[in-house]
């Protein structure tokens, strides 16, 4: 019996809203606003720090480099996630190669929404190895 007064209040409120012509606004975000975009300027220092921290004074070593590569990708991914960028999916790729004077070319192309998606890259070189790290940020609608 105590529920009845509450039940009658709500329809009255709805009727009032409809009379005033108010509409409920859409709140689902379908594109990131400027602050939450995946900006290269914000993400590049993150990658750069990881590479410099982990690779300065390291030499190319057949066995160790494989594990090092995987660790780098996981570290970069964890730091990017920690930095905000909500609603973004990440793909992080790291390539480490031995410096022997050979020629290498790395290229990429994407089919995405250039307004909301972007990528960051960084290259680290020392005498015995070179390392290329790319991180792609793709917005999830």
């Amino acid at each position, binding site marked *: 019996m105590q529920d009845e007064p509450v039940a009658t209040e709500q329809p009255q409120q709805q009727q009032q809203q409809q009379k005033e012509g108010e509409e409920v606004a859409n709140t689902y975000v379908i594109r990131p606003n400027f602050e939450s975009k995946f900006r290269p300027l914000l993400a590049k220092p993150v990658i750069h720090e990881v590479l410099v921290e982990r690779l300065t004074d390291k030499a*190319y070593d*057949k066995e160790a*480099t*494989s594990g*090092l*590569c*995987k660790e*780098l*990708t*996981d570290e*970069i*991914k964890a730091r*990017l*996630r920690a930095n905000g960028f909500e609603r973004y*999916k*990440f*793909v*992080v*790729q*790291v*390539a*480490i*190669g*031995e*410096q*022997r*004077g*050979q*020629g*290498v*070319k*790395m*290229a*990429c*192309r*994407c*089919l*995405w*929404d250039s307004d909301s*998606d972007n*990528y960051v890259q960084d290259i680290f070189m020392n005498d015995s190895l070179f390392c290329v790290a*790319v991180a*792609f940020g*793709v917005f*999830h*609608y």
Partner: protein
Amino acid sequence: VSRRFQMEDNSPAALQNSFNVEEVSQIIKEGIESSIGTSQYQQNKVNQWTSAIIEHCLNHLTRLEKPFKYVVNCVIMQKNGAGLHTASSCFWDSQTDGSCTIKWESKTMHAIVNVFALAI
């Protein structure tokens, strides 16, 4: 009345829209064979080759008309006895998104092509 919401969709429509690894790996192999199948490594042609492979892949992926955003990556390296390691780590929805990596080699060079597909 109770309802059970399933997060995994196994209906034919959903399967058609999911990431098909064999299809994509076929596309990548064709792309590599058509651009560098019989060539020797040449520094001044590498740019062309990587662009050609990637464009071929993207064009064919778009023709599949699936609701995905694609990232295609290609590495071509001269054979010199030097070592190369690549790794990738992804934060995505493992049920809808996927990736495909193809390694290819000839007498004078190595090629690695990665395709990442992220569902819309």
